[in-house]
């Protein structure tokens, strides 16, 4: 099969910049999708020729119409198919015959309506592959390119947006029209605007690679409903961020989906789809947004303002309360309040009344007019200790709102530092906000809302400076023995491997395991315990028992052969009482590790992202505390350290309240080895190592319990 990615890249250029466009299936009826799309292309002043293709019309909108696209004598760059789904394939076939390589299929009635629709989609893909066509859709709103050299509005959106540097890609067409309306009200422009619908051929990944090189795009926004190729998306995002330094902001819907309730392991239970998505996005450098408002709040900060060098801000306000609220929010977000230099303090003292607060946050006092704002903003901009400004205004009777807005824009244009504003209120401040927006000064209704965008921009640029390329998802170390054991279990229809079996597999990948032996009698248990050396731990091994503690299946601190024999009988007795008739494979006798911190490591196979590794505070309460972090394999050691530092209880591992730090070096290495194990064994569905006992620095860590769920 040909490399469709490269083909799409080439064909997307023609799709966004066509010299000629055929609208196949259009008609004269305004207010219908086929009719409006033609009119929209016409009215947007396309920099090219447009051909209506309609079986029954001689002309549409004064433009000569053709019965079939193959009847057009001239070359056609882009076809927009608006026919119903039942005949979309006929239209696409003719596009192929005509030599058209770029197509937008607007028609609905495909995968979204069930199996029959899915089959129709497959037919479209077969035709596309036959003729080297790349198509967007089906089931989409269309494509808009505001670049003056194109001015393409191949969509049925009501508006043609203003030119800008934000690219917006969406799986939902309806959301697109709402976003266009929202953006117009806020004076936000777009470079490219794409509704990609069912993404049968061209996906968000192809679009990301195209936009990586698009000179008009500075920020990429993406609304996704489903992730079909998680690793592909992560790689594309990393490539775009590393090579073009363009931030990618994504809203991924479906946060509340419940998929973990029936999981057979702690990892399976804790690693919900949304947690994995969060982790994968973080790993790829993607900024995940909660909603459209937050997305645009952050996007305008990226597009309109320079990046801050560090995260020290100055707050300038004419009202104390909002200043304090913003300070609280800033500190909570990780922003530092700048310490003004002596020159700044002096300048503020000279230009502000004695009642003003010349410390940060600077209060220019309620009766401040533009001159005070200008003086304070200029002084703060000039200060080397200030990396960015938050300016707050509340409308008092004497506040010259519009003048202040204009002056902010004028002063801001003289400095290479970011400035964000919040003119609080609605009716009185509306004209001032419009002035700010017109001059590309980010404005936020609530002053606290300035903090997140500032930090996202700051963190993004920090991340670029230390980003590392994602390595290929393949195991570095492979084990034939592990595969043999797993295949043998699968051949005997075994889906659950208990501690002894799981430990044998993890030991193949050099994870630190304890000496142990599976025993089937009290005498054997005593003998194995003696060989291993006391103290030992004894645990029941059964495919049917997931939580051994709950059935009295674990005894610790066994210090003699007699105790070992007694423990054997006690465990088997307890288990049989609670679960009568259950099949027990034996009692595992293993070396008891000295006291250490109990952590959990796990693997979960995710349908979108592949192998996901979990780390967190372990033990029997793991699902209560849920203090865990996730990453997608392969995991390098630096990422393993990030995982360790990310959990709330990381301080315990780093040495809290006089305790010595734990061996996080060994822990990080174990996480890396586990990631390798996951990649080498596609038949492992879930794996828990709980607990992994982490000893003091230099003393290592040990797998104290493990279990594996097979596919």
């Amino acid at each position, binding site marked *: 099969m040909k490399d469709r990615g490269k083909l799409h890249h080439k064909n997307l250029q023609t799709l966004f910049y066509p010299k000629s466009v055929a609208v196949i299936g259009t008609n004269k009826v305004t207010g219908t999708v086929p009719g409006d799309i033609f009119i929209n292309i016409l009215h947007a002043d396309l920099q090219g020729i447009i051909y209506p293709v309609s079986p029954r019309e001689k002309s549409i909108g004064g433009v000569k119409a053709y019965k079939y696209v193959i009847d057009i004598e001239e070359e056609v760059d882009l076809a927009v198919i608006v026919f*119903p789904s039942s005949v979309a394939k006929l239209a696409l076939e003719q596009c192929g015959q005509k030599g058209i390589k770029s197509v937008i299929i607007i028609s609905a009635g495909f995968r979204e309506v069930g199996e029959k629709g899915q089959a129709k989609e497959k037919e479209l893909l077969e035709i596309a592959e036959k003729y080297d066509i790349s198509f967007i859709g089906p089931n989409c709103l269309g494509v808009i390119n505001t670049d003056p050299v194109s001015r393409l509005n191949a969509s049925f959106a009501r508006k043609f947006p203003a030119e800008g540097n934000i690219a917006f890609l969406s799986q939902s067409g309806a959301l697109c029209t709402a976003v266009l309306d929202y953006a117009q009200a806020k004076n936000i422009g777009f470079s490219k605007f794409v509704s990609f619908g069912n993404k049968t051929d061209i996906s968000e990944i192809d679009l990301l690679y195209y936009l990586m090189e698009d000179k008009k795009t500075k920020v990429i926004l993406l609304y996704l409903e489903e992730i079909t190729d998680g690793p592909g998306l992560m790689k594309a995002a990393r490539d775009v961020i590393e090579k073009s330094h363009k931030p990618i902001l994504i809203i991924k819907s479906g946060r509340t989906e419940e998929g973990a309730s029936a999981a057979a392991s702690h990892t399976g239970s804790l690693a919900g789809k949304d947690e994995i998505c969060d982790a994968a996005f973080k790993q790829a450098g993607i900024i995940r947004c909660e909603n459209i408002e937050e997305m645009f709040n952050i996007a305008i900060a990226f597009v309109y303002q320079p990046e801050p060098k560090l995260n020290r801000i100055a707050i300038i306000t004419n009202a104390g309360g909002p200043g304090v609220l913003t300070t609280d929010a800033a500190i909570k977000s990780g922003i530092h309040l700048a310490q003004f230099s002596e020159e700044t303090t002096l300048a503020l003292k000279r230009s502000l009344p004695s009642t003003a607060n010349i410390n940060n946050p600077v209060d220019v006092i309620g009766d401040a007019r533009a001159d005070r704002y200008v003086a304070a903003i200029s002084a703060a901009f000039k200060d080397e200790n200030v990396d960015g400004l938050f300016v707050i205004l509340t409308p008092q009777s004497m506040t010259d709102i519009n003048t202040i807005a204009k002056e902010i824009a004028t002063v801001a244009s003289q400095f290479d530092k970011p400035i964000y504003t919040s003119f609080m209120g609605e009716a009185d401040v509306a004209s001032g906000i419009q002035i700010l927006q017109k001059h590309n000064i980010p404005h936020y209704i609530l002053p606290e809302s300035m903090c997140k965008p500032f930090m996202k921009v700051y963190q993004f640029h920090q991340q670029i400076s230390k980003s590392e390329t994602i390595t290929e998802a393949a195991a570095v170390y492979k084990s034939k023995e592990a595969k043999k054991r797993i295949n043998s279990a699968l051949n005997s229809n075994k889906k659950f491997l208990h501690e002894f079996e799981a430990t044998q597999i993890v030991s193949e990948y050099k994870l630190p395991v304890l000496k142990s032996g599976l025993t089937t009698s009290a005498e054997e248990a005593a003998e194995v315990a003696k060989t291993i050396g006391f103290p030992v731990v004894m645990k029941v091994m059964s495919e049917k028992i997931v939580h051994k503690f709950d059935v009295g299946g674990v005894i610790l601190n066994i210090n003699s052969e007699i105790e070992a024999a007694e423990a054997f009988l006690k465990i088997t007795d307890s288990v049989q009482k609670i679960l009568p008739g259950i099949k027990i494979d034996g009692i595992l006798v293993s070396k008891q590790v000295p006291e250490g911190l109990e952590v959990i490591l796990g693997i979960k196979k995710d349908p979108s992202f592949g192998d996901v590794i979990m780390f967190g505070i372990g033990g029997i309460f793991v699902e209560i505390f849920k203090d865990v972090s996730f990453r997608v394999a392969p995991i390098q050691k630096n990422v393993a350290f990030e995982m360790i530092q990310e959990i709330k209880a990381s301080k315990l591992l780093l040495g809290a309240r006089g305790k010595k730090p734990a061996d996080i070096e060994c822990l990080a290495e174990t996480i890396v080895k586990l990631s390798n194990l996951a990649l080498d064994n596609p038949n492992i569905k879930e794996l828990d190592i709980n607990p992994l006992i982490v000893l003091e620095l230099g003393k290592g860590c040990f797998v104290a319990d493990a279990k594996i769920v097979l596919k």
Partner: protein
Amino acid sequence: MNQEEVKHRIKKVVASVLKLDMSEITDNANFIFDLGADSMQSMLLIAAFEEEFEIEMDVDKAQEVQTISGAVEFISSYL
């Protein structure tokens, strides 16, 4: 009624509903792609066929018929 007669009457109905010349309607013409029927006209065609042939068709199945030749086969199954 033989197939040729059915075909002729179908073409006559189509020409009337879609306001086309009979000569424009080929045997394999697709109602939407070749003859430009929209969704409303597709429904009108079904009703007109029922009236012409005095039959009652399964509407869901009738909507799946896309061509003149397909309609000949489908309608013949009711005659």
